[in-house]
């Protein structure tokens, strides 16, 4: 067991596990965001629960942050190692003949997603941490006594440039997932009779979830 993370397959496995964890997180994030379209009250209630329940705040949130950082750091480490494995490039290389654009450019779609996460943290996570843990206001309420979460969400999506940036980021997310979903299963050794079905499910996931996020951003922009 010792040294498994120092091996190429061990790193691949760890990368895949963190990816699978992040894909599950993405699904629950999407489900909660979708509530904001159908029921602002339900969205407020769930957001307050997620933002104040101790197990989520002090156990799951640190695990999530670790998962995000681990996935990015490991991605960069692997990219650097892989570049060292070929120091002289081909004069002519026809990558499109044997692999998808998404699979060859995971580092770039990943960098775009990293930039988006920085913006997303600036927009939502840092103000949330400031309100709750620096100002000490755990009530989740506005001055008028109503929950603040839906109001804050709508306010953020007034700016068309922010909406545009979010939509572009979701396109990169879709490109990343189109390769990443099935790649994660291959990395953990799952290539069997279920692979064909899983590939279809992975493509659907990679398109439906980012498209749903685009819809939610546009919905709040046009319904403010």
């Amino acid at each position, binding site marked *: 067991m010792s040294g498994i993370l120092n091996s190429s397959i061990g790193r691949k496995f760890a990368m895949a596990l963190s990816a699978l964890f992040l894909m599950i997180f993405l699904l629950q994030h999407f489900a909660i965001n979708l509530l904001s379209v159908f029921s602002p009250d339900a969205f407020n209630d769930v957001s307050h629960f997620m933002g104040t329940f101790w197990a989520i705040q002090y156990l799951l949130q640190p695990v999530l942050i670790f998962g995000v950082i681990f996935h990015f750091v490991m991605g960069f480490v692997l990219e650097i190692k*892989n570049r060292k494995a070929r120091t002289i490039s081909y004069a002519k290389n026809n990558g499109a003949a044997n692999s998808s654009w998404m*699979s060859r450019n995971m580092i770039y779609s990943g960098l775009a997603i990293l930039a988006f996460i920085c913006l997303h943290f600036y927009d939502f996570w840092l103000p949330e941490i400031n309100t709750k843990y620096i100002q000490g206001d755990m009530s989740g309420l506005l001055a008028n006594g109503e929950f603040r979460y839906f109001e804050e969400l709508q306010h953020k999506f007034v700016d068309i440039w922010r909406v545009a940036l979010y939509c572009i980021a979701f396109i990169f997310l879709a490109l990343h997932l189109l390769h990443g979903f099935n790649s994660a299963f291959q*990395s953990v050794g799952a290539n069997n009779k279920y692979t064909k079905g899983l590939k279809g499910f992975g493509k659907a996931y990679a398109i439906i979830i980012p498209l749903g996020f685009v819809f939610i951003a546009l919905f709040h922009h046009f319904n403010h």
Partner: protein
Amino acid sequence: MNMNLTLKIWRQKNASDKGKMVDYKVTDISPDMSFLEMLDVLNEQLINKDEEPVAFDHDCREGICGMCSLYINGEAHGPDRAVTTCQLHMRMFKDGDTITIEPFRATAFPVVKDLIVDRSSFDRIQHAGGFISVNTSGNTIDANTIPINKHDADTAFEAATCIGCGACVASCKNSSAMLFVGAKVSQFALLPQGKVEATDRVLNMVKQMDEEGFGNCTNTGACEVECPKGISLENIARMNSEYLKASLKG
């Protein structure tokens, strides 16, 4: 119709030379020639002009030995599918074409001269565990006395068709050798004779693969497409799962 072609070929005097692409013209090339025969024609021209012929690897010229390599027009073994360079025919090209010919590129496959690379890193991976230990004292049991289900036998055979040419490494954007090692691990892991040493085999072969400086697989699938023997990505998944099982055991 015979063809006139422009060749852009990597020339490198020796392992320490910097190397460069050099342009050559070849004329009257028959579409029925193999790619290596076309290079033979070029070399005859060069020898007649007292120039150094282009060095390239070849042996059986029947697509079974794994010696020929070459990265042709941006693809390992050229634009055709499921063939080695020696089985690639000039009918895949058109009169007036420019063909770029490079050696397989990987830190673990250093160039020896021109288009010849040193693929002994593959040999060292094989030595690390790509075999089964058999008592040959005279009491050896015939392998066919052990019943094996057909699916496993067929899958092991398909994995064993890997000729170790290195096209997987050359095609992979990360220069990963996992299709080769996956095939070698699989061909034994699926059979009763191979299961005995399965744990040590996969751990030792992967360790050697990493030490040789091959990159990490990111599942682009380029290796499977370019493999002249059609070795499947299933072999990489099997190696991954064998490795994880072995790591937990050992």
